[in-house]
């Protein structure tokens, strides 16, 4: 009896061990999807051999992930020997999931990420350069400006999905009440002084309390770096590095922008609690009429505002609590110090990765086919329409002709104007310099900006701290001195 129970216990213990190990091994198998695919192609050799392409994709647009099955089917119908295996991820999980897979040496073949992440993965050596595998027809399908964002050095690391302007968004009714000729602003832009006076007019007070601010920009959480980055582009610093690769934010113009940032809060046009306002909070403030203008503004916000308006009309309980009907107006970011307006753009796209094994030419070509399929034609047209963003491929524009989108034509024209002076891509910046700038931004610039917004630091002190850190990082000759 004693021996029997011991044997039974041992079997259970072994069973548990095997289950644990099996779980690990099956996990490894999943992670190794990309390299397996590469391996298959390797083995197959000849063109037309079966291959699987893995893609890690977040919910790019509200309906994007609902279409995965159809996308995989359509891709397989066009390429019978290829299987597109899509792994969905939430936006929250996306970076962590991808980074874990990258650092384990087994990333997916394709991942949807921002082009600003390319340099990080290039430095890791984990991106797949597709310049030899992408055909000239494929490349020619794209507008040149967004395509440049997918480059680093000489390499091309995927296809762009869209180029979205980071703008501001206004409430039409409040803008009109404040006497702001928004149509003229959309066409001609505005200077900082004009903007400052305009948002002062948008402030509504009830006794001592402000019931509506002129301008609220999200500066907490994931949006923390946007505010300053968007503003400084319009102050003669379209990139953190000048064309001769000197760190630009040591320029005196940077200090002037910091002073202006503080001034807008001190005017009472922006809340003094701005440093804690995150993206969700400021959108809620916009929809509930607590601000006239918000930032950063994305084209898709017009869609969100329209949907909320419909819910209010239909007395739908899922409308944002306390919200009012709001017509969303796209507005440009003001320019500073007489400098030309430069629009910050987000170019996101389908970035191509490699595993530890060198991918074969066949597998590379197959990955390129899949990335192009996702980033052009019907798929791109559907996704971009869903997001209200401009099409950047010829095939996408053609496919979109048969689709209807209910957009404010003034906003469409405004976005088009903004994109006409989009900040150019800088694939020439060495990855090491780029990595240093990102670290400087995360460890000095954003923390100091938070203190500046909270009124705990003077603009001059923030500027001095950043300048010192920049000189430590890039050397005396590596920074702008003016």
């Amino acid at each position, binding site marked *: 009896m004693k021996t029997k129970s011991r044997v039974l216990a041992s079997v259970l213990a072994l069973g548990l061990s095997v289950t644990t190990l099996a779980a*690990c091994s099956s996990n490894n198998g999943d992670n190794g999807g990309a390299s397996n695919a590469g391996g298959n192609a390797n083995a197959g050799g000849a063109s037309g051999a079966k291959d699987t392409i893995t893609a890690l994709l977040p919910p790019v647009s509200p309906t994007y992930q609902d279409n995965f099955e159809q996308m995989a089917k359509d891709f397989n119908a066009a390429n019978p020997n290829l299987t597109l295996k899509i792994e969905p991820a939430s936006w929250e999980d996306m970076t962590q999931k991808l980074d874990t897979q990258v650092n384990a040496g087994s990333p997916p073949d394709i991942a949807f990420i921002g082009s600003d992440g390319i340099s990080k993965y290039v430095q890791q*050596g984990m991106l797949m350069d597709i310049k030899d595998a992408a055909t000239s027809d494929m490349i020619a399908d794209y507008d040149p400006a967004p395509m440049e964002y997918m480059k680093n050095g000489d390499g091309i690391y995927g296809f762009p999905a869209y180029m979205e302007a980071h703008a501001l968004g206004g409430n039409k009714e409040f803008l009109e009440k404040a006497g702001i000729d928004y149509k003229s602003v959309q066409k001609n832009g505005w200077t900082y002084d004009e903007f400052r006076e305009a948002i002062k007019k948008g402030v509504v007070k009830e006794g001592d309390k402000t019931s509506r601010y002129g301008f609220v920009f999200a500066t907490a959480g994931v949006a923390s770096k946007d505010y300053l980055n968007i503003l400084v582009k319009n102050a003669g610093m379209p990139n953190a590095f000048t064309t001769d690769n000197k760190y630009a934010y040591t320029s005196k113009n940077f200090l002037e922008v910091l002073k202006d940032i503080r001034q807008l809060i001190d005017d009472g046009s922006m809340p003094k609690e701005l440093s804690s306002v995150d993206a969700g909070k400021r959108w809620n403030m916009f929809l509930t009429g607590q601000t006239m203008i918000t930032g950063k503004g994305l084209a898709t916000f017009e869609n969100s505002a329209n949907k909320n308006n419909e819910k209010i009309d239909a007395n739908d309980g899922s409308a944002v609590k306390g919200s009012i009907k709001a017509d969303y107006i796209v507005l440009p970011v003001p320019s500073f110090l007489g400098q030309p307006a430069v629009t910050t753009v987000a170019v996101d796209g389908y970035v191509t990765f490699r595993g530890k094994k060198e991918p074969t030419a066949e597998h590379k070509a197959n990955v390129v086919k899949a990335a192009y399929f996702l980033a052009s034609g019907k798929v791109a047209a559907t996704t971009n329409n869903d997001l209200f963003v401009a099409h950047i491929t010829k095939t996408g524009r053609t496919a979109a002709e048969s689709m209807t989108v209910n957009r404010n034509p003034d906003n469409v024209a405004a976005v088009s104007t903004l994109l006409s002076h989009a900040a150019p891509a800088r694939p020439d910046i060495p990855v090491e310099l780029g990595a240093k700038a990102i670290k400087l931004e995360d460890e000095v610039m954003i923390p100091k900006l938070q203190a500046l917004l909270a009124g705990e630091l003077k603009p001059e002190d923030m500027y001095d701290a950043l300048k010192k850190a920049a000189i430590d990082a890039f050397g005396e000759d590596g920074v702008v001195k003016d």
Partner: protein
Amino acid sequence: MNPSKKSFIKRKFGGDAGWGYIFIAVALVVFALFTAYPVASAFIISFQDYKPLGSTFIGLDNYTETFKDALFWRSIRTTIVYTILTVPVALLLSFAVAILILPLKKWMQTTFKAVYYLPAVASGVALSVVWLWIFDPMESGIFNKLIGLFGIGNQNWLGSSSTAMFSLVFMAWLSSHGTSIIIYLAALLGIDTSYYEAADLDGASFLQKLRYIVIPCLKPTTLFLLVTGVIGSFQVFQNAYLMTGGGPDNATTMVGLLIFNNAFKYFEFGKAAAQSLVLAAFIAIVALLQFKFFGKEVEY
């Protein structure tokens, strides 16, 4: 085989001993795979410039950089402040709640234990969302509404360096004491009732019983909770990551968050591994000091 060697093997691995090894095999395998191997890997990586496609050995560079990094030392100081402010209060609260639950009927004890343990089961992210609402800087925030009743204006709880640390500490004071309460309660139930009976005969008051019976008997438990509490507090990451992101001006950048950023934001795994090992050594020293100073009078 030499008969004496054979009998040694039989003595060590045969019979009950052999079964013992089989039974601990699962735990050993799990420990080796998920604890020993990652620690050993981290040790090796700490001497490398880690890259998935091939790392290079760089000697002590990661350690030198760590020791020169002003932000690392600042994050250590911040973590120490956080630990000093949270752990003792958390222990006191857990102890007080356990004392309050002790005289209750069993079903009520169980109910309270479940209620206090509930936050440990709930997702940290979900809890943080609730706390973000509580600390909302505008008028709609619960705390701002509360202090508004006393005529105090809105506070930028998480956005100002004068209140951000307090906000995280306050959050720690009011959440996740479930485990400590259960452990304290189990220890309280383990105290021999004859001590209380003797104290009653001597006419001891509640406070005297607490001072002369309960506290001395709970010393091993308190030491255990103190050591594990300090270790947990030094590794704190989630609250700072989700609530403040380490800001403003790095006022809430705990060392755990800094290590995470180095590893997953900048892909500097070598530096992150070196910082983790320095932190581990620091925690080990603090734990040893705790045993040295607080463990003297502990009877196990």
